[in-house]
């Protein structure tokens, strides 16, 4: 740096007297300007350079595939042969004209609601209990995370034994107490419930830990103030704990929405055929995508069309989430006011 700037310094007419060679040359005004410009640039650019690896990777493995999928969806695209004729929106027409698409949409949302809603409620309650003064705290906290470590396929194997139509545990118990057996693999809603149970089994503990962390960040003085005000346990939970958890609840809802709309492992493993039942009672969007792309039709074009439709649906739900979040943030006065 200094070496390259030296000629400029010597040519400056109004420059200060040359310093003894042993000492560093003091900066000229022009050099200072340049330096500060560089420093400013450094300040401005460096953060972007540091975050750029993520974005470069994202462009490579995120954005590019998304755009390429759009390109594929406009073609007659075979799994093995690759690119075929340009067909315009014919693949989208096929998908949107197919009953199975709407079945998949229905099933996905049904399973999503049956899993996410109870999951968030149960996770908050579990976190609340874990937040209390328990013996062997770490043991209980790790305990709720154990189901999360189990691979989804293993979870499915266990639950197919529980939810088998004739030989399953649940139906044996039901029939044992004189109730009619539930047709888990025939009735769509029953199947959704069974699949949602697997999802809940796996994710509730994980979400509970997130809520627990958020709960422990709530200042204890607020509780003390509430206790002095004479509120009961129940009111403290509903009017202090839950409002203070709002940002965390929003985070969990958004992540479970994205996960829930892409659900695949559990419904695919729900029977051995893996197609979502004879009437597609539990075929989700991703299973439909898989069936079109890798099933007997081996049509990547159609599968890509489904992928894009799913992408648009997730974006739509994401925007909806964002709008609701904004409204909650605006109306979330009390939580902020207490600070």
């Amino acid at each position, binding site marked *: 740096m200094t070496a390259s700037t030296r000629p400029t310094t010597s040519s400056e007419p109004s420059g200060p007297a040359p310093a003894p060679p042993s000492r560093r040359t003091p900066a000229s005004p022009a050099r200072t300007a340049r330096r500060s410009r560089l420093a400013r640039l450094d300040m401005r650019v460096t953060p972007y350079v540091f975050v750029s690896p993520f974005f470069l990777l994202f462009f490579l493995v995120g954005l590019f595939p998304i755009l390429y999928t759009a390109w594929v969806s406009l073609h007659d695209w075979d799994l093995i042969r690759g690119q075929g004729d340009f067909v315009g929106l014919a693949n989208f027409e096929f998908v949107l004209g197919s009953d199975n698409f709407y079945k998949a949409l229905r099933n996905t949302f049904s399973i999503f609601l049956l899993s996410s809603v109870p999951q968030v409620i149960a996770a908050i309650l579990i976190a609340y209990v874990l937040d209390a003064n328990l013996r062997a705290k770490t043991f209980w906290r790790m305990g709720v995370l154990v189901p999360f470590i189990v691979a989804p396929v293993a979870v499915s194997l266990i639950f197919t034994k529980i939810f088998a139509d004739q030989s399953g545990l649940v139906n044996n118990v039901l029939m044992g107490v004189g109730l009619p057996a539930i047709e888990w693999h025939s009735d769509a809603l029953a199947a959704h419930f069974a699949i949602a149970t697997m999802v809940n089994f796996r994710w509730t503990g994980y979400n509970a830990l997130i809520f627990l962390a958020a709960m422990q960040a709530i200042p204890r003085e607020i509780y003390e103030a509430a206790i002095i005000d004479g509120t009961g346990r129940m009111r403290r939970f509903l009017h202090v704990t839950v409002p203070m958890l709002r940002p965390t609840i929003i985070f969990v809802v958004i992540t479970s929405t994205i996960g829930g709309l892409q659900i695949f492992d559990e419904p695919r493993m729900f029977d*051995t055929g893996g197609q979502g039942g004879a009437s597609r009672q539990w075929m989700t969007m991703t299973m439909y995508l898989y069936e079109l792309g890798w099933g007997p*039709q081996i049509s990547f074009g159609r599968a890509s069309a489904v992928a894009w439709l799913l992408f648009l649906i997730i974006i739509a739900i994401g925007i909806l989430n964002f709008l609701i979040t904004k409204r909650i943030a605006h109306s979330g006065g009390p939580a902020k006011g207490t600070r």
Partner: protein
Amino acid sequence: MKFTRRTALAASAATAATAAIAGCSSSSGGGDGGSGGGDIELTVATFNEFGYEDLFAKYEAENPGVTITHKKAATADDARANLMTGLAAGSGLADVEGVEVGWWAELLQYADVFEDLTDPELEGRWLDWKVEAATVDGKLVGYGTDIGPEAIAYRADLFEKAGLPTDRTEVAELLTGDWETYFEAGRQFTEATGIPWFDGAGGTFNGMVQQLTHPYETADGTPVPLAENADVKAIYDLLVEYKDISGGMTQWEEDWTASFQSDGFATMLCPPWMMGPLSGNADGVEGWDIADVFPGGGGNWGGSYLAVPSQGKNVEEAKKLAAWLTAPAQQAAAFAAVGAFPSQLEALESEEVTSSVNPFFNDAPVGEIFSERATAIEVQPFMGPNFFVINTVVADAITRWDGDGVDPAESWEQALTAYDELGLA
């Protein structure tokens, strides 16, 4: 510098030489051919149990310089997904790939990605229908390994309760004839015991449809509209007529597996490879036996091939290995090891096969029975690229009334709608 340039030159000369050799020795070309005399690494991809573990060691011993790596997938589905992905990517496949017979339906349209394995010396090695199923326009794309000739497995103890004959030759006589004979015997059985005759309509349908020469498509691959497919509708209607004697279970499902322990049904269609799962599921249950009979003649269910993808580096060596593995002696050894029933005429008559008995099935001479069943097979159904799409539509329709309680006529209507939605015509 000099050193690397020299080696590079030598290497390119060697490549040219081997390319020339490969060009001379085979007209099919494709890959680089065998690399002259050096170490050759071959990979073989299989699934489930092919019974090749000991044979690989033997081949390596007989062919110095050849190293075989075995890639074994847990399930056929995993192997199929891997094969499809590898073919799509144009690389990453094993030198020799195991292919299940059903996959040809989709793969034969891409026959050019596999090596032509036609070899006059090997003519007459296999059962005719086995070879035909892997031949497209005179090009043989796979060497047959095992087959699945179907017989009837039955519960002798339950037969006795119903007053039916229990001895396997008498049972064979009782059930000889068409499917109606089989179902009528079943009705008699179910009326006497209240136990379903067969496991489920889906599995039985599978056996019946495999006896049609052109189940869903004409010889040139044009799909027959389901509404006009009289053969398939006839099978569908026959199964509906005998709905009451079906166990209503889908094969491999939890309930199906459990029903072996609870007298869930009395008979099932049984290819040789089914003996393993059956005896496993019915562990501790006594009375299972196998009769040398199959309704409507013979029928095949499953069996595999070895194919050589053209993307491999050592296609010539891979062909040699595939031919060796599927030779009668090796397949007889595989049968002895894991029960993969050979598709080679000579192996079917070999001592290892014919003398084999299965203690679980009341010491039935299964080798003899299945050899007999293999020769009874006359047709291998034509499976075009649309076979599985249409078959799934019909199989779903059957599951709807067999398992889910939907009205059969309504279910057929739904199948017709589903067929139209495929947009095949």
